[in-house]
């Protein structure tokens, strides 16, 4: 394609070149630039430049004054406040008394990660080694935090609440979504009806989902009030307990996002050539065997990609907690984005940017690790 030059054009076109044609030809010769430049410029202005500019906010104290913003350089003090200072409990959770159990688990995980790092040194380049070191450092930090807060019986902060939404949410959604896709890929009546119905929640405004869930979960006026009364739970209020509030949030989030996994996995399943399955059946393979040996390996690359996309979106969760609980009880259901938004409202732009930046680093490291070690591996295996 690259060899599209004048030599391939009929001669009579370039014979009488007017001024206008010459301009047209110049544009055509550089058409690659003209096609890509608008998109690249927009992304540079509204994504890359603000991301870099955000660093200036994160290392400053920012004040609104009469004539614009006043920046005062404070170094890493905004981050220090998050990790060691006044926001530590809200952000990381309570990490004070670490139990023996917590220490034990942490040491096991840390050793496992280091062994993995040591072993992978044999077969990767030094660039890969840098990436793996970053992943390992993040894994050790996160596992320390998990052991010190949750596994030692302490409250978790917004960082782990976000991770809870990502890990637990994605797991639930992936399992149920894939299960539904399997059901719908079977020869059943009303396939198209189920397909449409199951797809709808994905498109509904997250804000509307939040309000609908809040109405449904209302313990006195909601539709499940008779059920709760029957179970003897009429005094139970989910929104005052941290974990039940988080799980109700997860129900709302799953309601919205299971369709995404469902629709992608259904497509992958329907793409499997039928003769593979039939051949295996003729050879006398049992259904679980067919599933394990033929269907699953073929959908695995798609599954990994879909999970990655879902993870990327899950890190951005904000509207559901904001609507359903406003981050409460206390700050138990606050995601990092929501915390950053609240801090911004309190006019502390520096801290807000610091939280946002931590979220960016967390997202990039987790998603890039997942992409490199899981998705690429699956795609390569499928290609081989």
């Amino acid at each position, binding site marked *: 394609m690259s060899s599209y030059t004048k030599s391939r054009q009929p001669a009579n076109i370039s014979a009488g070149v007017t001024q206008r044609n010459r301009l047209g030809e110049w544009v055509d010769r550089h058409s690659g630039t003209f096609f*890509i430049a608008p998109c690249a410029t927009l992304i540079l202005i509204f994504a890359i430049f603000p991301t870099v500019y955000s660093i200036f906010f994160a290392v400053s104290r920012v004040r609104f004054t009469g004539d614009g913003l006043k920046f005062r350089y404070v170094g890493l003090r905004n981050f220090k406040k998050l990790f060691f200072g006044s926001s530590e409990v809200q952000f990381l959770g309570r990490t004070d008394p670490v139990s023996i159990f917590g220490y034990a688990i942490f040491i096991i995980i840390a050793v496992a990660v280091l062994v993995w790092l040591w072993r992978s040194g044999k077969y990767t380049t030094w660039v890969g080694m840098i990436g793996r070191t970053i992943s390992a450092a993040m894994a050790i930090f996160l596992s320390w935090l998990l052991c010190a807060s949750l596994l030692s019986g302490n409250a978790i902060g917004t960082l782990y609440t976000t991770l809870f939404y990502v890990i637990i949410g994605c797991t639930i959604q992936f399992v149920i979504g894939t299960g539904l896709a399997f059901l719908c890929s079977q020869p059943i009546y009303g396939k198209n009806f189920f397909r449409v119905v199951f797809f709808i929640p994905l498109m*509904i405004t997250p804000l509307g989902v939040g309000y*609908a869930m809040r109405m449904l979960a209302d313990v006195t*006026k909601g*539709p499940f009030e008779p059920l709760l009364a029957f179970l003897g739970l009429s005094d139970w209020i989910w929104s005052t307990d941290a974990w039940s509030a988080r799980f109700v949030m997860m129900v709302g989030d799953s309601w919205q996002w299971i369709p995404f996994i469902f629709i992608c996995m259904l497509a992958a399943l329907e793409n499997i050539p*039928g003769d593979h399955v039939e051949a295996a059946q003729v050879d006398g393979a049992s259904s679980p065997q067919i599933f394990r040996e033929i269907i699953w390996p073929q959908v695995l690359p798609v599954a990994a990609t879909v999970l990655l996309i879902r993870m990327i979106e899950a890190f951005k969760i904000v509207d559901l907690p904001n609507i359903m609980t406003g981050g409460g009880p206390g700050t138990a259901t606050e995601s990092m984005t929501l915390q950053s938004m609240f801090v911004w409202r309190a006019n502390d732009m520096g801290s807000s940017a610091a939280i946002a930046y931590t979220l960016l680093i967390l997202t990039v490291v987790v998603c890039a690790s997942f992409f490199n070690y899981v998705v690429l591996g699956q795609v390569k295996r499928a290609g081989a």
Partner: protein
Amino acid sequence: MQQIFESPAIGKMSPMAKILAYTLLGVWSFFVLFPIYWVVITSFKDATAVNQGPFYIPFIDFQPTLEAWRVQFTEDPYCTVSAIGRQLWLLVYNSAVFVVSPVVGLNPMEPQICKVYLAFTNSFVISIFSTGLCVLVGSMAAYALARMNYAPRFGNIMVFVLLLIGVIVATTYLGVPWWASSSAGLAIFFFLLRALRGYFKMSLRNNDILFWIISQRILPPIVVVIPIYVMFQAVGMLDTHLAIILLYSVANMPIVVWLMYDFFRNLPIELEESAQLDGATRLGIFWEIVLPLTRPGLAATTLLTLVLCWNEYLFAVFLATVKVQTMPIMVSAKNTGEKGILWWEMSAIISVMIIPVIIMAILLTRFISKGVLLGAVKG
């Protein structure tokens, strides 16, 4: 469960497996549809029907009433269809006034519309325009990445980026008008391009650019929204339609490029090659041959982008505060009342907000069941 994974060509499902499958599907349909049903019927209740505990079926449990809809959509004197028409005309008129403002001084029109209709109009206009911009720009880039051997030199890119930063800084902090700074930047860019030609040999490949564009989706919006707020404030574009339209189209650009790249790559290349032999320009090929060929993909991408723009929340919270308030922001602003949330009125607004989306979702499934959106995930 034993035979649930068999295809009909060989064996039929056993009755037990069938019953189990349909029960699961039925339960899930209920789980999906019930919240929507509940929102819709709550909008037909009055205060007592909501507050006295759950009532499920209209006409049997409670007497449905249109009170909530009346209060929300017709009570205010400016809540009429003509107010929407006037608002649309106002947008056209005020944009024209803005364009000619350096030459002719005209007064912009003042809005006369109630909040709900204003939010609806804003959401509508913003979704349409940002989707149009996003799909146009994104699919052009995707086409170039799929078909052209575009190898920009590192040096050129660096010069461009540095000049872009210069233009942004000059516009936002030094108060230079945007047209002056950007044309100066472009002029310097072409001058330097001539001067530096041949100095840098390394260049980017198409895949690098594609990966760079798609990976922008990882960026959490909260990271960029504060600087963008400050940038828009500096150029006086805070709370304008243009700002939100630009922002939404950038936010959805990665998805559009990703999906459209896949459609373009799967087109047969022969048509384009023969058009090239006939002397068609690249733009002509793109506009007259390639785009019509990808019409289903284009339609599906457009629908998806429309829905994403309609639903967007975080950017709107920060940047669309008063004049360009969109539906989600208007709804969440109703959250804070001294009487608590009036669920019946809230449900009426939410119904209006989600009905267009449900229609688009049904349209979109038609494309998906034809296998339109799947290639991208596989790749």
